[in-house]
Structure formats: C-alpha cells, structure tokens
C-alpha cells in the first residue's frame, strides 16, 4: 500500500448531479459559470492554437485563404460600380475602402454568429466523452474570429495607406466596435446553439438568412436617405454596429452612436442569456447526441 497523497486529506470539492433545473440554485449556477469561465482560459487558448495551426496546414495557399474572399468580393462590387450597373450615393470615402471595410466587418459578424454552433458540432466527440468547461469552445471560437479579423485588418491597412486616408483619434475606439460586433454575433449564435444542435434546420436557415441580411446592411452602399429602405436598414441591429465601427475606423465620427449604444447594451444582456442557455442545455444536448 502506498501512502495516500497529501492532497487527499484536504476537504474535497463536492459535485452533485440531480435531475432538477440548475436555475433553481441560481447562486451556485452563477458561481460555477464564473469559475468555469476562468478555468477554461488555458484550454480555450490550446484549442485556439490547435484550430489555427490545423486550419491551413493541409492547404497550398495557406493563410492567403483569409484574404481571398474579401478581396474577391471587393473587386466584384468595385467593378460593378465602376460599370455603373447600379448607382450608389456618396460614401464619404473611396468606394473600394468602403466595400472592403464593410465586407470584413460583416464577415467578422457572421463568423461570430456561426462560431458557437460550428465549434459544438466539430467537437461533438469531445463533448460526449470528456467533461471540460464548455465555455472553452465558445472562447476558442471567438478567438479564431478575432484572429481571422486581425489578418484581414492588415489587408485593410495596406489599402487605406494606398488611398492615403488620414488617421483619426477615433481609431482607438475601433476595438470597442469590433468587440460589440463579435459579442452580438456570439450572443445570437449561443441562443441558437441548443436548437441548432438538435435540428440541422437552424444551421441551414442561418446561412440563408445571413445572405439575405448582407443586402439589408450598409456594406456595399451607404444608409439610404428618407425612404422605406432606410427604415428597414436602420431597424437591422447590425447596421449601427457595423456603421459605427467603420465610421470610427475611417471617417472619424460616428453617425449612429445612440443606436450603437442601445444595441450594444442589448447584446450584452443577450450574451449573458445565451451563455446561460448554452450551459444549461449542454447535458440535454449530449443526451441526444450520437458521437
């Protein structure tokens, strides 16, 4: 018989599993959420490094894939605009910069929106076999979205320098705008994850709806003035987030700041609810998963 380890003599942490809703012991739930979030940082970092290093390893063009989609999209819109296929009001900046920045920000939002569902789907086998802080998947997903954005920002910076655009002090606020955009995407994504894990319809619909919203967000055109489209576009919650971030990045002052503040506070609340939902739903989802 070996000697029992010293650590075994300390009072041990007790875990209890019962069928009752975790919400019934709300205080404990909140404490657990906090400690799990803290405990998940190292795992999230590891998963992030794993995903990033595996992402382009089996590919010839590698990191170029991060640039190719926004460049192509921009080229297409710039070409169509230059051929006068459609008329666009003054954007207040060179059109290529307008489209490229809009595309990159939109892409960041949709990636954040899809990331929770995608991460859970990709790591199903881990979820059904290992008990680890589930927050790690969401954090790693968010990290990857930001990493992809960072690569694209380099591209955007080069284009901005090419057009000799002035740098404003509001550039310092850009990270706030980006975090809000990512946070809003994550919040919606988390809220959809439980249903999305059960029914694939959610994933399919998500792709379709984001495509539709691409045209209802001022990405390739500025917010129109005084018509029905204006109302519709302004009601789109992504509009103030994207527009404000772009304004801070290039114009210097934000035109939709009140709406931005409103949407960002709502998305903070949604993010918390989404997180709670994701956490609470996970054991039920694992019950129904086959992996």
């Amino acid at each position, binding site marked *: 018989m070996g000697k029992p380890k010293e650590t075994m003599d300390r009072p041990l942490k007790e875990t209890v599993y019962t069928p009752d809703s975790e919400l019934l012991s709300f205080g404990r739930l909140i404490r657990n959420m906090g400690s799990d979030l803290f405990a998940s940082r190292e795992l999230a970092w590891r998963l992030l490094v794993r995903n990033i290093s595996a992402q382009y390893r089996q590919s010839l063009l590698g990191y170029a894939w991060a640039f190719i989609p926004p460049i192509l999209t921009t080229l297409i819109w710039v070409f169509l605009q230059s051929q006068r296929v459609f008329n666009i009001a003054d954007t207040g900046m060179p059109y290529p910069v307008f489209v490229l920045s809009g595309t990159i920000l939109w892409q960041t939002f949709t990636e954040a929106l899809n990331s929770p569902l995608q991460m859970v789907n990709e790591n199903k*086998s881990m979820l059904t076999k*290992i008990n680890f802080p589930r927050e790690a998947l969401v954090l790693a997903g968010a990290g990857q979205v930001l990493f992809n954005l960072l690569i694209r920002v380099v591209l955007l910076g080069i284009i901005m320098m090419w057009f000799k655009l002035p740098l404003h002090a509001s550039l310092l606020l850009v990270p706030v705008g980006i975090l809000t955009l990512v946070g809003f995407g994550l919040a919606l994504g988390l809220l959809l994850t439980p249903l999305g894990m059960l029914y694939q319809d959610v994933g399919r619909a998500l792709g379709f709806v984001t495509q539709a919203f691409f045209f209802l967000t001022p990405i390739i055109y500025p917010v129109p003035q005084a018509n029905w489209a204006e109302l519709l576009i302004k009601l789109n919650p992504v509009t103030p987030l994207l527009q404000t971030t772009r304004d801070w990045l290039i114009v210097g002052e934000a035109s939709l700041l009140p709406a931005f503040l409103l949407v960002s506070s709502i998305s903070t609340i949604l993010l918390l609810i989404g997180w709670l939902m994701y956490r609470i*739903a996970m*054991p039920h989802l694992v019950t129904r998963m086959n992996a």
Partner: protein
Amino acid sequence: MSNHVLVNVERVSKKYCRSLKRSLWYGVQDVSREFLGRKAHHNGLRKEEFWAVNDVSFELKRGECLGLIGPNGAGKSTLLKMLNGLVKPDKGRIEIRGKVGALIELGAGFNPILTARENIFVNGTVLGFKKREIEFKFEEIVAFSGIDKFVDTPVQNFSSGMRVRLGFAVAAMLEPHVLLIDEVLAVGDARFRMKCYEHLIKLKDKGTAIIVVSHAVNHLSRITRDCMVLNAGRNLFCGEISTAISMYEEQLLGDSLGSGDITDTSASIHSVTVFNRKGEACREFTTGETVHFEIICKSKDLIRGARLIVSVESPTLGILGSFSTPYSKFCFDVTPPEIKVKLTLPSLPLLVGTYFLNISLYGPGETDYVTRSAPATSFSILGPPTNEFGYGLSNSIAFEHAWKLVKNNPLVSCSVERNT
C-alpha cells in the same frame, strides 16, 4: 467518516428514446423546462422511451474499485456518463467528492493533422492540466506510450494501437480522486495492457476510487474484487466478482438461447440433461467433480454410424475445447424414435464460471451434418474460489501440474557450499 465515501449514487435512473425524431423533440422540451426553471418531470416514460439506467445505487470509498459488467446496452456507459456529469440523471442523485478523471474514449481531443507533441498538449489541457504540468510530465508520457521516435509525426499516421497508447499515457498522468474507465483497456497489445493495469493498481493504492466498465471480465479480476452486473439498466447483482462473472455469463447465454439452427427436422437433439455423480439432475458443481450428461436424440429415420461432436464453451471466451465420439471409438446408430447417450466428463478441469455444451449430430461422412443442440446445456462451477494475485488457480482451466526442485548445477552448488 462520510468524507471517505467518494462516490454516492442514490437510486439513479436515466431514460433514452428509441426514435430519433421524438428524441430530438423531447430534447427541446427538456431544455425549455430546464430554462424555465421547472422541476424535471420524473415519473413515467414518454412515448418510445425506455430506462437505460433504472434505479441504480451504490457507494464507493477511497481506494475501492468497482467493475461494471453486463451485455451491450445494459446501461454501463450511460451510468459512467452521468457520473462524469456529461448527461443529467432523470431521477435520483449523484454525489462525487474530489477531482474526477474519466477515460471514456482515449484521445477524444486528438487532431489527426497535428503531431503527437502538439496533441499531447491539447489533450492534456482538455483533461484539465496546466501547460507547466504537461511540460513536466512530457518525457514520462512519451516513454509510457513508447512512441519516442514519432513525437513529431502527425497522429493520422499512427496505427490505432499507437493512438490508444498515446491517449492512455496522457490520461495516466491524471491522479484523480475518482477515475471512470470505459472499455478502453480492451485495446492495445498484451504488454501495454499489463502496464495499464499496473498503473491502475498503483492509483488505487494511492486512494483513487475507480469505476471500470469492461467486457474482458477475466482481466477485471486483476484490479477489483467487487463487481456490479447490469442488465437492461437494472442492477442485478453487486458483490463478489466471481459470482458476478458467472451471472454475467449466464445472461450472455440466455441471449443466445434457442438460437440453434436445426436444418434437418427429421432428426433433433431433443434434450441434454446434466447430472452429478449421484445421478441427480444438477447444474452447479465444483472444480474436479465428475459431470454426466444425458443426450436424447430423436429421429424419424435410421442414421447409421452417427457421430456426436461436443464443444465446451464459455460465453465470454468462446470454445474451450471439442471432442467427438469417433475419437473414443464409440460407435452408435440413431434408431427411431429416439436414443439416449450418456456422456461423462470425469474430474472436470474447469474453474469458477458458467459454461455450456454445444452438441452436434453428424452422419458418418465429413459433411453429413444432421442437427445441433441449441446451446441450452449450461452448468456453473461455483468453487473453489480462484485467486488472481498469483497465490492459486485463476482464469478458466485447472491445469494439472507438478513442481519439483531440480538440483542446481553441481559446480555452482559446490561454490555455494564453499562460501557457507
């Protein structure tokens, strides 16, 4: 004192659904109920649901080990998943004290494109280790898994055995208070398996409570004396491992009962009865007893020069040995309507467990297959107890054997004598 109880499972049940569509819908219901903060509705099953684990209770203290055995779908893995907190119980209560480690599937966090080195770090972190702890144990992990030449090879180029070894080596670093193991020890070569068992015994001695699911029941006895037999989610038996194993083997037998394929309906092995030495019908024996079987073959036609082929089988190990009537130069004809043949197995060399006879009737030619008995003729050996720790007999067969000290090489013994 309750501090020493590490795992306490109280009347735990879990239900699953047979149909996918309904299962998903029930999932939506359960999530919404949970999110609205309602109490779970325990009672009763919804349509197409069944109890995967039904009213199971047990308790495990420090340094104890419990084996879980049972046929496929008995609820063993579901029970482990509940203990690990992966799924919630539908009834009952589970209390676990201390850090829980689970080897449910080795290498579940492996990414095939990444190298072994990278995967060790990923998998280690998934299991809850800090970077520094992994760096500290890195050499040990590589040595334990024996993959030192392949540390920088992508895991997709590994053989499945290597992957399992790497997975176990990473997981073996865990020194949890409670360890859950699901069937992972059935893989890998024999030498590595031994290493794994040694490691588990070491953990147990340090005070880890271990719960292990295995189909390799004869290996199980290496690390535990207590075993729970599950069937259809229910706890059939919990206690001494040899009783548990023979119970499990009886169950396996029960599943295959009546599956004998009778091709020629004009003849059949009507019944096989087991008797003890005194001629009483009996199914329970001890090692070394003489066992008699009475085989009744029915036939409408005369079968000249018939042969009987008998194999002694174990439900877990398969066929242990076969013999036939021609070997003993025993000749007989099957005459209508029936004949009775008596078979004697003197001083049966089988150890504790459940066994059965599979009897086939053939004609004189090699391929003259007539009929086969359904594997219904089972009997159990209840004693004497076996010993897995190297102080007695163990596993299935009691080999007759003898020991003798042969005199040492004279030169050596001379030198020994001179020294003393």
